[in-house]
């Protein structure tokens, strides 16, 4: 029983990271109808920035906050420079743009900080949480920060005027313009927020997977899986999907004989495909019915 609880809690902790990545992916998908393949690399680059700031002597939380601000501005800049001009381009052009962004960020990080694995600090320590062997303080910190972030985002979108305007711009852009919302800037703002959310995921997972340019590859695949599982049209679904994927991945690795660490990923993805066969819009997604 202790093993089970332990695995579930560890799953929730990594699931929190998948939830953040899935949320970032969904926010951009809602704004521009494309999957951002470079979301993980953007998060990785942000994490390197925070590492660099700490190397220069800043405290963890100072570096954390500065990285958030940097990521927010960088996300807006990427949208303005690269994806705003591509807004009316065909899907494949956009896909090429995302792949280019992926490769550029990945190689730049390698060029600046090289490809060797680096230790990344945790502000929470890695002792047992509240004296219990079930979960470490860092894992508890991952869950805590994510929950705070999610609550903050919920209040932002539900109770602020700018949050309302962003939701309106994403759901019916033409009507949003007709009530006076600058939809183009709302998209840029969405990019900024998604990038900042991704950077939080990167900084929280870096102590676990270590810091290197390819650190987010696996995480982003789980993030995508979570987003698709929960439904790309539902931010709430993406978050739930993230936690589900995290828990399932751990339980499958522990209890299904022969799976272990190596086969965790394919098993998790197989589950997701099975869910999608039954519910193509994802668990919480809306079917969009078009009249023909």
């Amino acid at each position, binding site marked *: 029983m202790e093993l089970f609880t332990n695995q579930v809690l560890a799953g929730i902790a990594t699931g929190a990271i998948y939830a953040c990545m899935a949320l970032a992916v969904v926010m951009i998908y809602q704004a521009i109808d494309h999957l951002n393949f470079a979301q993980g690399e953007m998060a990785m680059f942000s994490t390197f920035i925070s590492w660099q700031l700490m190397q220069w002597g800043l405290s963890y939380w100072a570096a954390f906050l500065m990285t958030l601000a940097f990521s927010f501005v960088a996300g807006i800049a990427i949208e303005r420079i690269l994806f705003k001009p591509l807004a009316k381009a065909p899907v494949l052009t956009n896909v090429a743009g995302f792949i280019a962004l992926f490769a550029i960020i990945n190689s730049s990080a390698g060029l600046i900080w090289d490809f060797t694995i680096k230790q990344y600090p945790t502000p929470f320590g890695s002792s047992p949480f509240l004296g219990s062997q079930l979960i470490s303080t860092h894992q508890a910190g991952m869950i805590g920060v994510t929950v705070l972030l999610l609550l903050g985002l919920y209040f932002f979108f539900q109770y602020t005027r700018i949050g*309302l305007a962003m939701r*309106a711009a994403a*759901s*019916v852009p*033409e*009507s949003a*313009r007709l*009530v*006076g919302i600058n939809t183009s800037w709302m998209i840029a703002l969405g990019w900024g927020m998604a990038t900042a959310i991704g950077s939080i995921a990167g900084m929280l997972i870096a102590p676990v997977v270590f810091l290197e340019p390819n650190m987010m590859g696996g995480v982003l695949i789980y993030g995508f899986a979570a987003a698709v599982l929960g439904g790309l049209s539902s931010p709430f679904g993406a978050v739930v999907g993230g936690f589900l994927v995290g828990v399932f991945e751990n339980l499958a690795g522990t209890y299904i004989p022969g799976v272990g660490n190596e086969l965790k990923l394919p098993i998790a993805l197989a589950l997701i495909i099975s869910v999608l066969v039954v519910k193509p819009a994802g668990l919480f997604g809306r079917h969009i019915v078009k009249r023909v």
Partner: protein
Amino acid sequence: MTTLLNVKDLRAYYGQVQALHGLSFSLNEGSLVTLLGANGAGKTTTLRAICNMVRSTGAIEFEGKPLNNRSTESIVRFGIAHVPQGRGTFTTMTVEENLQLGAITRKDSAGIVSDIERMYAHFPVLKQRHTQVAGTLSGGEQQMLAVARALMLRPRLMLLDEPSFGLAPLVVRDLFGILGKINREDKVSILVVEQNAQLALELADQAYVIETGRIVMSGKAKDIANNEEIRKSYLGY
């Protein structure tokens, strides 16, 4: 009476296709003007051109200020509220959120709260359903919501694109009654595009008839309604 909206030699294009061929008309402050015409005559395009939602040339002036080459969202900030064809409801949001979105450019939060109450007085059914998701409203209720959302801007001018479309005759009567009241009591000037010419002419002060992208007739709504020849050849009733 001062001219609120003045449109001169308006030409509009969808890609290579020209939809308006030099259209001119004007609207006086406080008046209710209707644009009539058959399917494809260019009524909707005219409204869309005013809000810069379609490529156009010519002069569009609002209170003497040119609107050309401004973005749709900045034109709205002049006090022009556009209720588009199909109503443009934010279907995944609640009725109250739809109303708040109508006032999203305003800064006076106390005024917004009292205006929402005013809309509930105009349209009691919206009050009953204020927490309901707007997509679950009936067609008539959604049209009420669209008009209320537009009024939340406290507009100087309201553009309405076929408000009667798809509604039961009784609901249309109701809606047009409210539009007349808004025009008289709240001093909102209204430009309404309609296929239901008979009803629109009853409501309007001034009417223009469009055919294939040109104005072919204009005058007092009463005169056009009483002229049998015009009615038969252009309005089909």
